[in-house]
């Protein structure tokens, strides 16, 4: 490799190497100082590059919320959809145009609360999607309401006396629904996160990565946890890497140890594989595989 190319690839002293993948005309982004979302974006872009998937094939879909804004900053074909409906929108994109590598970046409330039904069905179908669920334990964009991931006793604006509902153990949820790649990392584990996102993108089937991320302005402030940097230090001290741990044991209690790692990685037929196999079996020669999306060159 030509060393000049390397320096250029790395970026020059004047331009961050990832600027080509960001909508710089919308920078600076809206996320707070010490929020982990910017870090998730760097991990995503690095993983997308390392996966060597052609850039035009990558599509990013997000829902509503702080994490939902991620699609707006990424310079791929990106779609900012309605609250909770990122997954079926992504399903439509994928099934209509199977060549696409459809990635979702959305928040815990968006994916697991209002979007919960869609999450479990996409996992069940083993739909070939890469879902990055950024979990900051509340609905941050709207001011810090409790979410199905808010740990018991934590403070949120709709649980001013402390949350008392049992929260979801998201890796367990998606694993039990049939996801074929499940991982959890924190925003601090940026290298492992990058590798996981890359593996997830290259994985055929429903890949789900939960990223525990600091929310300084809302969750951390209301619960007196300091800044995002303090939360990162917490993740440093309290995360336990247990690859292939049983997802059953991965629940998160308020300010206690967090199990991170790659929990599930298996190969199973995707939705499109199963559909084709079944059609071929029953229809035989009469089966005409999906013709694909319209081609602008031919649709005149």
């Amino acid at each position, binding site marked *: 490799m030509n060393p000049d190319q390397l320096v250029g690839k790395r970026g020059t002293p004047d331009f961050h190497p990832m600027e080509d993948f960001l*909508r710089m*005309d*919308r920078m600076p982004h809206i996320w707070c100082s010490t929020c982990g979302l910017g870090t998730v974006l760097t991990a995503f872009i690095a993983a997308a590059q390392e996966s060597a998937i052609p*850039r*035009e*094939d990558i*599509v990013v*879909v997000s829902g509503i919320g702080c994490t939902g804004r991620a*699609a*707006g900053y990424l*310079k*791929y*074909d*990106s*779609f*900012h*959809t*309605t609250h*909770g*409906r990122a*997954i*079926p*929108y*992504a*399903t*439509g*994109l*994928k*099934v*209509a*145009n199977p*060549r*696409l590598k459809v990635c979702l970046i959305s928040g815990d409330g968006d994916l697991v609360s209002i979007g919960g*039904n*869609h999450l479990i*069905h996409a996992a069940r179908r083993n739909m070939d999607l890469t879902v990055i669920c950024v979990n900051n334990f509340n609905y941050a964009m709207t001011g810090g309401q409790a979410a199905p991931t808010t740990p018991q006793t934590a403070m949120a604006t709709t649980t001013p006396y402390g949350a008392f509902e049992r929260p979801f153990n998201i890796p367990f949820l998606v694993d039990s629904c049939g996801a074929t790649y499940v991982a959890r990392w924190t925003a601090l584990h940026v290298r492992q996160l990058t590798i996981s996102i890359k593996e997830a993108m290259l994985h055929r089937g429903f890949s789900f990565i939960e990223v525990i991320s600091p929310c300084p302005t809302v969750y951390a402030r209301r619960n007196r946890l300091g800044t995002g940097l303090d939360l990162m230090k917490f993740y440093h001290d309290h995360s336990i890497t247990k690859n292939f741990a049983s997802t059953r044991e991965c629940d998160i209690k308020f300010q206690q140890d967090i199990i991170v790692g790659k929990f599930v990685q298996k190969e199973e037929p995707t939705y499109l594989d199963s*559909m084709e196999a079944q*059609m071929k079996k029953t*229809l035989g020669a*009469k*089966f*005409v*595989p*999906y*013709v*694909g*999306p*319209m*081609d*602008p060159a031919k*649709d*005149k």
Partner: protein
Amino acid sequence: MNEKKRGPVPTGAHYLDGDHACAEGAIAAGCRFIAGYPITPSTEVAERLAERFPRIGGTFIQMEDELASIAAVLGAAWGGARAMTVTSGPGFSLMQENIGLGVMTETPCVVVNVQRGGPSTGLPTLTGQQDMMQARWGSHGDYEIIALSPSSPQECFDLTVTCFNLSEKYRVPVMFMMDECVGHMTEKVVIPAADTIEVWPRRWYRGPRDKYLPYAPDKDGVPPMIRAGDDHRVHITGLTHDERGYPIITAECQHLCVSRLVDKIRNNADDLMIVKEEQLDGADVVVVAYGISARVATKAIADARKKGIKVGFLRLITVWPFPEKKIRDLAGKVGCLVMPEINLGQMYREMERAAAGKCRTLLVPHCGGWVHDPNDILKAILEGAK
């Protein structure tokens, strides 16, 4: 049917019900993506397509609910497919938020509502025309859509193709307002040769990739479209946005963005107006009807003419945007406009508003569950002729 030899469109005369004809219409229009959720009385459309698609290269996915169905349809449209979903009242209610997203992001797609008795679970297996206002106002915010209403299985075929064409031309979700009666009525449907069916292409953008602006309109107010995966690096959002698609949360941007969405349809209302006129000149009373009620009205009109009353007939095919101009003109010339509908007054309000007091207007309501008794319509015509 030997699709591979004959091709996907079954040219010829068939004996089909409205639902099945609608399915064939979608196929003829080039639709190859359906996402749906079963709901009576629209289920047959999805069932027929689930059976036909794997033989003609389409893809059908049954989603987990109607919210997912409409979201998948929008995603598929951006993936480059002609996409459609079918539902009825309760499902239509669930879809409203994402219909709003479809309007805001200017996504071409077709939503078929085979109306049934409502509200709520209502009469799942019996007819109604009670979602007409909802088609126009169901989602929140200011917006305009296009809605068509068929009166026969033949029209279920023909107008489904028209729905797709209009959705592509105006980059807007089009509502196909069938009803259970037309959907479950079996009649002769003649399907023409595939090459004679007019299918308009999508308004593809053909300029340089890096100069594409997803919401920069052409002269008629409609922007050209692309599909994901062609390296346009487009950003599409439901937030109020500028021409680049970037969200700008200001009153100025709202004004630019939303006015254009609304004007896009309103300014083209004349082109969009599809009606069938019969003996309007010199009429004393004109019956204005749509859907199955129009079929029933023909009996009442025939009876009234036998009694010597000069009755004209205006059958609305485009129901939204409402053909205000036509009604306004007509109101100045006739004594009374009579509208039978299987609801307690929905499109009637539009007609009354457009008539602006220039003539009398009479509603022949029906709560749903069955079609009108033609005598009720006749009574209204006689009343109108006084």
